[in-house]
């Protein structure tokens, strides 16, 4: 059975992805900051839960050493969106910098640390949960802190796709949709179940031919 490693697996889209893959018989490595409070995640049969703060790069390296096994899909799902939104006029630069660490540098660090695990798996997929808010050509204003970290994450996806093509690794950016989670809020358009199912289908159908591209949860390509 294939293995998926999910960051930010204790709630929202990460939790639902863990549930759906486990139900399908995948081996699920669920990572979250505080396993002690991840009661939902721990309830799912077939999920091994690991403590991981993705911004602690030494801890990422340590987990990569501990988990000496192939990883078919690395799902870089952990991410943050600042509240209130940060843009021109109310920017908090320390917070902006911290957002880059979580949303851009950490997914890259995960790819570096788990490169070998992915390379020796069957499917060899790295999926970065991005956002349509990272689409640069969008002409609306505001929220530049979050948006710039996702544009930068898309560049990480694209650049990794070039670098890891020789290893047969497929790298994707995925917009999960506007989902009813803690981040998306209660009035969002779709449920975590719909989002996770769409992303799962996309990832299962992914081949090197589509590496380096940006899709939404329905499988439609999104412009940069």
């Amino acid at each position, binding site marked *: 059975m294939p293995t998926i490693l999910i960051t930010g697996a204790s709630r929202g889209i990460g939790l639902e992805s863990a549930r759906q893959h486990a139900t399908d018989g995948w081996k699920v490595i669920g990572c979250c900051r505080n396993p002690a409070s991840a009661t939902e995640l721990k309830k799912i049969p077939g999920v091994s839960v690991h403590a991981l703060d993705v911004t602690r790069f030494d801890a990422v390296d340590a987990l990569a050493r501990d988990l000496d096994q192939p990883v078919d899909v690395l799902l870089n799902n952990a991410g943050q969106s600042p509240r209130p939104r940060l843009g021109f006029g109310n920017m908090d630069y320390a917070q902006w910098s911290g957002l880059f660490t979580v949303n851009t540098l950490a997914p890259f660090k995960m790819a570096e640390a788990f490169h070998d695990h992915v390379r020796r798996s069957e499917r060899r997929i790295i999926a970065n949960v991005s956002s349509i808010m990272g689409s640069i050509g969008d002409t609306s204003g505001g929220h530049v802190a979050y948006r*710039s970290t996702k544009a930068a*994450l898309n560049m990480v996806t694209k650049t990794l796709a070039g*670098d890891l093509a020789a290893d047969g690794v497929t790298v994707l950016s995925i917009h999960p949709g506007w989902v009813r989670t803690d981040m998306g809020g209660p009035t969002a358009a779709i449920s975590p179940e719909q989002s996770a199912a769409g992303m799962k289908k996309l990832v299962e159908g992914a081949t090197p031919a589509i590496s380096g591209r940006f899709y939404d949860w329905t499988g439609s390509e999104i*412009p940069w």
Partner: protein
Amino acid sequence: MPSVLVTGANRGLGLEFVRQYSAEGWRVFAACRSPRRADDLNDLAAASRGRTSVHAVDVSDRRAVRSLADELNEPIDILINNAGLMEAWSEGFGQIDYAKWEAILRTNLFGPAWVTHAFAPHVARSERKVVAMMTSGLGSLTENADGNRNAAGKLYMYRSSKAALNMLVTKLAADLRGRGITVVAIGPGHVQTDMGGPTAKLKPPESIGGLREVLASRTIEHTGRYFFYTGAPQPW
């Protein structure tokens, strides 16, 4: 005469901007980290009869940016955010220094954000009201493609900082439209500078000559877009 503020003015493309605007008699505010070591720039300033002045500022230092903005109480027609850093090509996958990545984001992204925030009032009370961000083909998600093997891969820090800078351009364009300020990304091409290397196709006078023409004709209808030195619109 119109006025221009150029960051990273001590060498390469920044220095060439100063040389050309100076030669045309513009009021040039030339900013760089260490004016004492900027011999070429100081020579240009000395020959300008006071029209070109040199200012010490590290754009990654928010307070230094703020104090320069307070000191220069004059309209600025064109603000050129040119200062930028790039890692070595050898610092690729598996060789990443994350502290350096943060430093590059600070100079290439936060720097232009600080400078634009601090100088938006100066630009808003000028005639032309143009803010330009120096981006790069290496920062284009469209151009970093599998079909372009030489360009694909590596330079994660530089590329991601420029993609993020491009995002800053489209958001600032929306945020500053109401004040009549035009914000554009500009691409210089691959130029023979310390950053571009000696084998680059273009020389600075040609690239900057083209970019000055582009900037001279930008108005609010161009805001939020990205133009090559030839004037051609570029994809994100």
